[in-house]
C-alpha cells in the first residue's frame, strides 16, 4: 500500500541519516577517512591508506627544520620526483596520532606540498609517497622540539 511504503522509506532514510552521523555507515569518497588519522603508529596509518611496508627512498623529500623552536608551528614539506604517485603524506612518529596530513596527487598539481604541523615532542618526521600500486616510499628526519605543541 502506498502510504505504508512511503512511511517505510522515510523511516529508513531517517535511520540511515542517524547511522551516518554516528559513523556506522561507509562515508562517501569525498568525506574524511578517519581510520588513517586515528591510527596510533606510522605503520598502521600507512596500512589504513592502502600501502604496504614502507621502503626508504631518495626520490621522496622531506623538508623540515633540524630544531623547531615552537612545537605548535613546525613547517613541513613533502615532495617526490616519482611518477605513479597516488598521495603524499606527512607523519610525526611520536604524536598521539602520527598522520598529520595527506595530499592526493594528480596531473594538475606538482607533487610538492608545504604546511605547518604541531609536534608534541622531538620525534622522527616522515614524508611518505604512496604509489598507485600500493607501495610506500619514505624519507625521514629527526626534528628536535624545544617547546611541545600539544598544549598543557
Amino acid at each position, binding site marked *: 500500500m502506498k502510504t505504508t511504503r512511503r512511511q517505510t522509506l522515510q523511516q529508513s532514510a531517517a535511520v540511515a541519516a542517524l547511522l551516518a552521523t554516528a559513523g556506522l555507515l561507509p562515508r562517501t569518497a569525498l568525506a574524511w577517512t578517519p581510520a588513517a588519522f586515528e591510527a596510533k603508529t606510522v605503520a598502521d596509518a600507512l596500512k589504513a591508506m592502502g600501502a604496504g611496508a614502507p621502503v626508504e627512498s631518495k626520490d621522496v623529500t622531506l623538508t623540515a627544520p633540524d630544531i623547531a623552536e615552537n612545537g605548535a608551528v613546525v613547517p613541513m614539506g613533502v615532495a617526490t620526483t616519482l611518477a605513479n604517485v597516488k598521495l603524499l603524506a606527512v607523519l610525526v612518529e611520536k604524536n598521539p596520532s602520527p598522520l598529520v596530513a595527506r595530499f592526493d596527487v594528480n*596531473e594538475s*598539481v606538482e607533487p610538492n606540498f608545504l604546511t605547518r604541523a604541531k609536534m608534541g615532542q622531538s620525534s622522527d618526521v616522515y614524508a611518505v609517497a604512496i604509489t598507485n600500486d600500493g607501495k610506500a616510499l619514505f624519507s625521514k628526519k629527526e626534528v628536535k622540539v624545544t617547546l611541545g605543541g600539544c598544549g598543557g
Partner: protein
Amino acid sequence: MADPMRIRAQAKGNDAVVRVLMSHEMETGQRKDSSGKVIPAWHITDVTATHNGKPVLKAEWGPAVAKNPFMQFTVKGAKAGDKIAVSWKDNRGDTRTDEATVS
C-alpha cells in the same frame, strides 16, 4: 563564519604557486580546560582547490596541522588571470571557500 582565507597565487613559468593562510583553531582534542574537561577536537578535515572551476587539489588533514593553517601547493598549467578557489570543511561540518586570481 570564520575569517576569510588569505590566498596568494603567483605565476611562475607555466605554473602558479599558491599559498593559503586559513583562520581556524585546529583544536586537537588533547587539551583540557581549567576545570579538567577535555576540549573537544575541532579542526579542518578536508581541503580542496579548483583552478578555473576544475578540481586540482584534494587533501585530508588531521588535528596535528597547526592552528591558523598554512599550505602551499603548485598548480600546473596556470597563468595570470586564472581563478584559484580553495575550500575547507571541518569536523563540525562548517565550510568556507575563498578565491584568488593568479597574478
